[in-house]
């Protein structure tokens, strides 16, 4: 298959995946046993008759096909509907939050990668003590994101960027270290060492160019890891980003917001997946 055809096929698959994720969200929300639950139903101040009326009103608007048609129509107009919780257009609600989250993701992923690359480069070159030096990353991997964020708040040190960086560094360090250890052991590097090339020159001239495609693939997958961690981090640090909005939408069963965020997250993840596969395929070719 030619390059443009491959790219088109991948883009089509990415689009289809994104749409399927959005449809899946609608189905999941609609058929979940708790979909008809409304916090108003739990409110003791409403009489049974009023609660039944609320339920009946909800039932009228909640068939799958009308929901799907309504959503599809509004997507085509570039409109994602109105939030059930805030009574504001979803696009208006998400727009400013995307910027906040994108900035957090950008800073977290860059700092995390910097930390992971520096540590992996240093530790992979060690002949002894690699296990002990890598121990902090192993411990970091065992701490849930929410616990790490709470610890930062308690210690009054660091913030969302630090937590995200540590998480990314812990996840990527393991892969980077394996990758670099393999690279250090390759025959051409031994030859280079025997010829007296300095470690810095070896890294710059031989290691980095060789592992660059895998690094790119890993970097795109970091986006997926970071997106997953975004929700607890933003909720605990009260960062007004997409993660916090997703949590609020989930808690309040705000379907239009949930579908819009699913669409956004699925498109980012699918695009990252497409990039990582493409990078590796180009390397194989």
């Amino acid at each position, binding site marked *: 298959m030619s390059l443009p055809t491959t790219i088109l096929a991948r883009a089509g698959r990415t689009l289809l*995946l994104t749409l399927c994720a959005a449809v899946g969200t609608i189905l*999941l929300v609609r058929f979940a046993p*708790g979909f008809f639950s409304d916090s108003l139903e739990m409110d003791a101040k409403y009489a049974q008759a009023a609660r039944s009326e609320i339920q009946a009103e909800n039932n009228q608007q909640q068939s799958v096909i009308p929901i799907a048609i309504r959503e599809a129509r509004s997507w085509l107009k570039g409109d994602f509907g109105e939030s059930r919780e805030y009574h504001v257009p979803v696009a208006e609600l998400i727009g400013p939050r995307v910027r906040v989250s994108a900035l957090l993701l950008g800073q977290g992923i860059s700092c995390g990668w910097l930390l992971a690359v520096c540590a992996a480069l240093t530790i992979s070159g060690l002949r002894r003590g690699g296990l002990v030096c890598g121990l902090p990353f192993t*411990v970091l991997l065992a701490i*849930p994101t929410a616990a790490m964020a709470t610890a930062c708040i308690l210690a009054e040190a660091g913030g969302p960027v630090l937590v995200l960086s540590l998480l990314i560094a812990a996840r990527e360090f393991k892969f980077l270290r394996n990758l670099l250890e393999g690279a250090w052991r390759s025959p051409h590097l031994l030859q280079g060492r025997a010829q007296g090339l300095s470690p810095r020159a070896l890294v710059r001239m031989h290691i980095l160019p060789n592992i660059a495609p895998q690094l790119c693939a890993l970097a795109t997958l970091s986006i997926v890891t970071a997106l*997953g961690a975004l929700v*607890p981090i933003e909720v605990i640090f009260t960062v007004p980003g997409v993660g916090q909005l997703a949590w609020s939408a*989930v808690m309040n*069963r705000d379907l239009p917001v949930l579908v819009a965020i699913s669409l956004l997250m699925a498109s980012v993840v699918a695009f990252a997946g497409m990039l990582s596969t493409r990078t590796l395929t180009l390397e194989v070719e």
Partner: protein
Amino acid sequence: MKKCLPAAALLLLILGGALVLRLAPYDYAFQDRDATMAPSTARHWTGTDELGRDRAVRVAAALLIGLTGATVAAAITTTIAACFGLLAAFSPASIAAILMFVSDIFLSLPWLFLLMMARSLLPLTASPLETAVATFLVLAALGWPACARAIYRGASVLRSAEWLIYGRACGLKPRQLVRLHILPHLRPLILPQFLICVPAFVVAEANLGALGLGVGEPMPSWGAMLLELDNSALLAQSHWVYLPIALLVAVLLILESFAREGETNA
């Protein structure tokens, strides 16, 4: 000897937890209203929470509930993944592509977001036991796609193996082939997937609990215990508040060492 250490430590923790629950005069939901937010005392060795519930009992219960739930959920998810991966690997290419596309749909949303969405859509009036079962079932139901992909890749390699062709030629039925030949060959691949899922599910439950979407009160869970750390008045009273998080990290380190060993052996 070195390899047995994590297993011994985990066994010790489980036995310790069971012993605490067996010997303690209270259950995890008992509220000692005269000793709310108590520091370490003769009655409550590790103090109590803001409702006067014994921390040691609650941590022990959270340990056992978390481990049991995560292990059962990991077993279910690995079974689903094995069935899905095998079905895709031994089906015609078009069906395999469709099945893998289905797994990609699940993978196209971040794991925690998907979990959060699925878990939150359960009824608001569920009992604590129901929320615990629902949480771990949601983990089991959504954790399989990545494992299924790994098993599919491994099983695809086996499809053209000579012994499989020989088995078919000898007239073995597909079910016999799977049970007698394919599954034993895939065991080194399936077991690490199971071992990786257990700590991942413990972490996911803790994160969900910290977001208020985990196991419902008064049933103890790692997530609910993490929420205790938000209470600054409680933190000022006793350092035992940090016990759950310290134990959680220790358990996760042990579980991850199993997962690493499984990966190395594979």
